[in-house]
């Protein structure tokens, strides 16, 4: 039943977007103009390549994100049954968390968390 509802929600999302776009295309006006398809830069003509270089900092943060997101994924099953596992499992997970905190401290020390 849940998986069916999951599919129903996906279909509802696709239906909403498609139907609204069809209505908008059907009743909206249409006009043709040479300048219409140009990128909007507040009235100025655009200069140079659009897909330009941007700073590498975004890439660095996405790598850090990946590490911590995977870590959270591993911790979820443990957090669900933490009460039954008790103190022994807590100490084992402490090592896992310790390594991650060391990693964060290393990235911090290396200046990876600064936006320069």
């Amino acid at each position: 039943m849940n998986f069916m509802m999951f599919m129903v929600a996906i279909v509802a999302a696709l239906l909403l977007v498609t139907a609204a776009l069809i209505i908008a295309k059907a009743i909206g006006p249409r006009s043709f103009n040479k300048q219409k398809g140009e990128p909007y830069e507040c009235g100025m003509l655009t200069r140079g390549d659009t897909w330009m270089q941007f700073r590498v900092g975004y890439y660095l943060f996405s790598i850090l994100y990946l590490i911590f997101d995977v870590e959270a994924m591993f911790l979820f099953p443990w957090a669900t049954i933490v009460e039954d596992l008790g103190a022994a499992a807590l100490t084992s997970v402490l090592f896992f968390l310790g390594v991650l905190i060391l990693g964060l401290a290393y990235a911090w020390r290396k200046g990876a968390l600064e936006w320069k």
Partner: protein
Amino acid sequence: MNGFLDYYNFKPVAEWIHSSLCGVMPEGLALFLEGLVVAVVIILLYAILAIALIYMERKVCAFFQCRLGPMRVGKWGLLQVFADVFKILIKEIIKLKNSDHFLYELAPYLVILASILTFSCLPWHNGMGIIDFNIGIFFVLAVSSIEVVGILLAGWSSNSKYTLIGAMRSGAMMISYELSLGMAMLAMVALSGTMSISGIVESQADGWNIFKGHIPAWIAFIVYLIAGNAEANRGPFDLAEAEQELTAGYHTEYSGMHFGFFYLAEYLNLFIVSGIAATVFLGGWMPLHIAGLDAFNQVMDYIPGVVWFFGKAFLIVFLLMWIKWTFPRLRIDQILTLEWKYLIPICLFNLLLMVVLKVYGLVF
């Protein structure tokens, strides 16, 4: 246990509808009809909530700025949003030169998909959650991150420098705040002992998580509100749409209804963030119970769960709007510093605190 909570339970009603439908037609057709009704309900609820939230935002914003807000269209401007929806429908959808057309069309689909999937996970009422996986919270976190892909695609494919920079900033911010969102949830999952949304609500029958988990739950709640506000791209975290520098950020090049989808998803994400906060921290549809006051508890049980859920969710919506219209926008380096140097260490510490308290039985 108590009469009214069972009286309001929707599950028997759903089972009765299913069995009586199966009595008059084959099961496949019955399932199809139910699915159709649920899909229509999702779309209608989604649209109505969006309209209510946009009206509320305009009024709240106006009152915070000592204005009246929309007053002309209908009584107290009640029809203003309907007029806006109609206006956005009759605007032309522009085809861009040199844009990556397939990705440009795909991006609104992804944004709405992520938002509707998380939206259907909310527990509206006792037994009325549409999707109720046993890994509910994990599922919510997983599907809500599809939105980042939609935003990045929108910015990348639009063939404009503003959208590219806006999408990159937005992406960096959203993936960063997803971490503290996940870790705040992790602490609450440890407290509840289950990931299922209905399970989390039912575990709060004897007191909301925010009272049961005392200090770590409050820390997680505040961190969740900050991170959730950033996830919804709102408030002081709306640097992707910093009008002075980036015009409208990642959806600069979208026109008409195409833009409407991003606008819709933004407001619904606000509601979803508030709804999840109401579920995980404030007990979802559970009424407020005070131990020892039986008469008071009976009266509270009399109020239907759907009223409790919407009341709590809209309370948090109002709180987030208050934050949005009070604080100035942050710079990207301040946002990333706040997340990586403050919230993540706080979250890791808070998780450990919660787990230690839970293992040694110091939470209620």
